[in-house]
């Protein structure tokens, strides 16, 4: 294996009969890397393998050039933010971060100072003395980030760190992670929302069902997504007539009737939304509701992993 910051070769992980990762191979040198995939894609498993929380069933994984399992030297350079929301609930936030920082070899005053600085970085200094159980979901999410940042790691592995944050907090965390990337910290961050990752990095790994689907620039993945037929559901008083009308649209490739619902598939969602808006405004078919069925990554992944069905 070469000198990439994050790399894997022939990496497999299974839990009994369940295959979580299957023959994964990649090597990434970019400072900030996004790991994208729907729920169950194997993102958390891959991140846990990179942090030495799990052992590969087969193959090899390396972070900063080192195998992570039981690797004390690597752990000293690593910050990990897990996905789950579990803490020592009765412990005050500052004490929690300071304790974990002490385990990185800092003495008690240094650990307390670094913990305070990390809490300030994620805007939690005002609640530092509160027990963790009294913190809101967004605060807890930022607390996980603080414990990963406090000891000044060279690599950050962050499992869905933006989930549960409000838009303003998201923007601030994204800015913070970009800054860290600019400073040379290797940041590996998972999400199932492409535009979140897009704001931080140009390099993503696309994972689905434990396999690497694609890796590279965000633009390339975005192009795949834009080529993906978009599904829109409409509720109308006269669905049959509406379906007939929609079928006459050039860019609508398929129409399905589900009771009072009409589901269409289009390759030009923007044009289609515009024309549906006009139909709704005319009141001709009694359109009551419109819903995009593809506003989540899972739809895109379904499309990407089933090329034979297209």
């Amino acid at each position, binding site marked *: 294996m070469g000198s990439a910051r994050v790399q894997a070769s022939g990496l497999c992980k299974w839990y009994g009969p369940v295959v979580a990762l299957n023959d994964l191979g990649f090597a*990434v040198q970019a400072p900030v890397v996004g790991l994208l995939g729907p729920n169950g894609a194997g993102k958390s498993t891959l991140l846990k393998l990179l942090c030495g*929380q799990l052992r590969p069933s087969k193959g090899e994984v390396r972070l900063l050039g080192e195998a992570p399992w039981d690797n004390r030297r690597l752990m000293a350079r*690593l*910050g990990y933010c897990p996905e789950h929301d579990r803490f020592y609930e009765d412990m005050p936030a500052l004490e929690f971060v300071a*304790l974990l920082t002490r385990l990185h070899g800092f003495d008690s005053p240094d650990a307390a100072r*670094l913990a305070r600085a990390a809490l300030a970085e994620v805007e939690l200094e005002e609640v530092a003395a509160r027990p963790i159980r009294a913190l809101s979901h967004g605060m807890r999410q930022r607390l996980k980030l603080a414990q990963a940042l406090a000891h*000044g790691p060279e690599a950050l592995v962050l499992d869905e760190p933006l989930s549960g944050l409000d838009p303003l907090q998201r923007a601030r965390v994204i800015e913070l992670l970009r800054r860290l990337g600019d400073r*040379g910290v290797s940041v590996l961050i998972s999400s199932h929302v492409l535009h979140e990752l897009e704001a931080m990095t140009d390099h993503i790994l696309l994972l689905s069902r434990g396999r690497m689907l694609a890796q590279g620039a965000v633009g390339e993945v975005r192009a795949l997504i834009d080529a993906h037929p978009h599904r829109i559901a409409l509720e109308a008083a006269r669905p049959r007539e509406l379906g007939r009308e929609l079928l006459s649209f050039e860019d609508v490739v398929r129409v399905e009737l589900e009771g009072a619902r009409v589901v269409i598939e289009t390759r030009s969602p923007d044009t289609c939304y515009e024309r549906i808006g006009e139909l709704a405004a005319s009141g001709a078919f009694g359109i009551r509701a419109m819903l995009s069925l593809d506003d989540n990554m899972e739809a895109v992944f379904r499309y990407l992993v089933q090329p034979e069905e297209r």
Partner: protein
Amino acid sequence: MSAPAPSPPPPAEGLAEALARRRLPGALEAGWLLGRVFFRQVLGRRRVLWAGLVMLVPLGMAIYARATGGGSGEGFFLEMTVNVFLQFFSLGLTLYLAVSAVRDEHEDRTIVFLLARPVERWVILAGKLGAVAAVVALGQALLACGVYAVAFGPGGLLAGLPRLANVLGVLTLAALVYTGLFGLCGVLFRHPMIPALVVAFGWEGAVANLPGAFPRLTAMFYLKSLLGLGPEAHGLLTLLLPATAPAAALTALAVLGVAAAALLGLAVSLGARKEAP
């Protein structure tokens, strides 16, 4: 992809000096920190506070027995040691705490925060089990001193000191052996409470008092041997098998020492191989 890895990032303000002073924690220091965390978590629970109150019951019993003339002196102190400390607290309290030390953080998933630190994996469990043994031994020692003061005091306090030292040694050994035993149950079983209860009150509690050579398979037999006591065999089996005499002190010490080291070592080394939840 093949460019050389960059040098570490310029540290944030104040971090550079702290990083220069940083020294990765040794096993003892990390174990101490982790033990403290574990006990902070466990001792804060309401059921453990109740257990602390229950531990005061023997003291109340001793005071009552002394006041009513129901018991005092060495015989009474030994009876309390065997029936209350060894067969109840040494087994029950250690079982609860040692199983918690192994399982709770895995079930709560807080273990992932510890596994991402530069601490060897075996140290995490060793620190917690060390804390269990220390708290059980110290808790029982304090309580035993209280019962001793009531049973022997005030006139016989000096005369009873050798027996007190003997009891404290036995309780410490019991804490070590049972911490290892129940820690191992926690590592081996997905739901360890039931097997641990069977081991505690079925094996250690019942088999230790059978006639014949069966009690030699229990730690309780050797612990009682160090107090000069043999199994309390009753029932039909005593007609077929003679009661076993207590083991010699050196034999008992050797068996308990080896058992404690083996059980703790096995629990810690198997626990270190466990992956995060």
